[in-house]
């Protein structure tokens, strides 16, 4: 366990962007709140409308961090088992009494737990600071629309749920990225993209069908579709915001979906493959 902590710490030493990038995004947002226009047209702020504003505000901030986190995580997972082979430092790390499984799992853990949590915290801090700045600047004229303790907690819970289900849903993608990272000798991004493209093309050419394309599309775009009640705008349209946030998650549907667990199985086998490759490959 102690070894694992050191392995994770090592990832933070190497990849400063894990926290520098969200810190920069958050700072930019706060700067925008400090110097940007805050006169959002909302004359009759109050009641349910203010909660709509609150949800929109928190969702917008969360969405920006979510997008940045997705891009960074993909890059991190693709790079993490490739970079040290490229600079040959893998030979140093392999001289330590650490198993390859522990190494791969530490990187997986950073990619799907540590990075999302860092972004989650950064989004929270940024939202709090922005709400505070906007409230002060607008002399609380409509600043109070951003302060609903209950709403904040609900949105927090929703984001954690979305992150947790997202990790499970995207586990085949995560596993694939690790596998390519452990395997590629160059051009990791290309090598991650080409095999699925080749499969789709081959299927289309030889069978005339496009099942793989549909499966892939549903997997890549279906994360929140699988874990939340849809349509996602249902509660907004009904004007029932406060109960709406609570009603969005669909854990029963998500955890009973075979799609989720088939994905987890595929993801786990990709990770196991990455461990085997890691045992054998030390150069690029």
């Amino acid at each position, binding site marked *: 366990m102690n070894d694992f902590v050191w392995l994770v710490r090592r990832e933070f030493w*190497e990849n400063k962007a894990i926290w520098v990038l969200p810190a920069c995004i958050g700072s930019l947002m706060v700067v925008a709140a400090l110097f940007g226009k805050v006169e959002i047209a909302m004359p009759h702020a109050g009641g349910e409308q203010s909660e709509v504003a609150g949800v929109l505000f928190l969702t917008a901030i969360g969405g920006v961090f979510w997008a940045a986190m997705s891009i960074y995580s993909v890059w991190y997972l693709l790079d993490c088992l490739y970079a040290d082979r490229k600079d040959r430092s893998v*030979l140093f790390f*392999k*001289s330590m009494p650490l*198993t390859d499984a522990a190494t791969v799992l530490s990187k997986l853990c950073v990619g799907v737990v540590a990075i999302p949590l860092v972004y989650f915290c950064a989004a929270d801090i940024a939202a709090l600071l922005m709400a505070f700045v906007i409230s002060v600047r607008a002399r609380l004229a409509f600043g109070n629309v951003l302060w609903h303790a209950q709403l904040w907690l609900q949105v927090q819970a929703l984001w954690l749920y979305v992150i947790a289900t997202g990790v499970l849903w995207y586990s085949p993608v995560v596993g694939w990225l690790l596998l390519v990272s452990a395997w590629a000798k160059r051009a990791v991004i290309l090598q991650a993209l080409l095999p699925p493209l080749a499969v789709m093309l081959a299927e289309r050419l030889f069978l005339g069908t496009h099942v793989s394309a549909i499966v892939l599309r549903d997997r890549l775009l279906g994360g929140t579709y699988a874990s939340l009640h849809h349509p996602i705008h249902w509660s907004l349209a009904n004007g029932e915001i406060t109960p709406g946030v609570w009603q969005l998650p669909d854990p029963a549907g998500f955890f009973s979906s075979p799609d989720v667990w088939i994905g987890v199985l595929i993801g786990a086998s990709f990770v196991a493959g990455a461990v085997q490759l890691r*045992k*054998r490959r030390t150069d690029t």
Partner: protein
Amino acid sequence: MSSSPALIEARGLSKRYGSFLALDRADFVVQPGRIVGLIGPNGAGKTTALRAVLGLTTYDGGLRVLGREPFAERALLMQETSFIADVAVLPSWLRVQQAIDFVAGVHPRFRRERAAALLAKTDIGTRRRIGELSKGMRTMVHLALTMAIDARLLVLDEPTLGLDILARRGFYDALVNDYMDESRTIVITTHQVEEVENLLTDVLFIDKGRIVLDCPVEDIGARYAAVEVADDRLAAAREARPFHERRALGKTVLYFEGADREKLQALGEVGAPSVSDLFVAKLSAERAP
């Protein structure tokens, strides 16, 4: 030789990369307390042999290192084995202090004070990043980390490649003065034989994936002879079946294996070949048609 169990025991060790046979049924044994030079030309299979010993690659044949099967048990093996594979493999983003903390955190046999004491002898600050250090300094940091690990086996693969003469000398001096004792065993590969020949207790010559010579250094004089032969006795000397012949500066040196001393003395001046001369002689003989 010694009856204690061998540290490394390879029997019919082979490794194939596609159609290329990097190791071809190599047999060798390394006994504890020795400094063994694994010597061969580029592409001879030195690094492949060491990769197999260190559990970095799969292989065919039998191989035991410290009683373990290296590929399957690399993590356990690394508790008692350290290696410096090539120069400059410490990652450039790592700070010297972080390197010490990390190794101290994951290696049960690492002694932090020792690493600090070794580094204090250099003028390398612990706040510095590896990437800011010269190649020689990086090697010294790596050596300090490695020497602070209380390992039974140390493997060095071309550890001084690309270093200047001062750094190379410093490296080997530190190794011999501050590290080596009878409880340790070192295996060094290099193609710069001259640099290590005074250190070694044993030599293993490897060529085209096969071990062509396996001999303690102290036995070289008894097993091999280099005879300087004058031109008028050359024909007679060739009768005695030398395995290699070299002509330099108007003299001819003939190399013999297991020949009768007294007979050789009649042919010319007899001496023990140096490790590097023996290496050249053996390899040329292996390659001769």
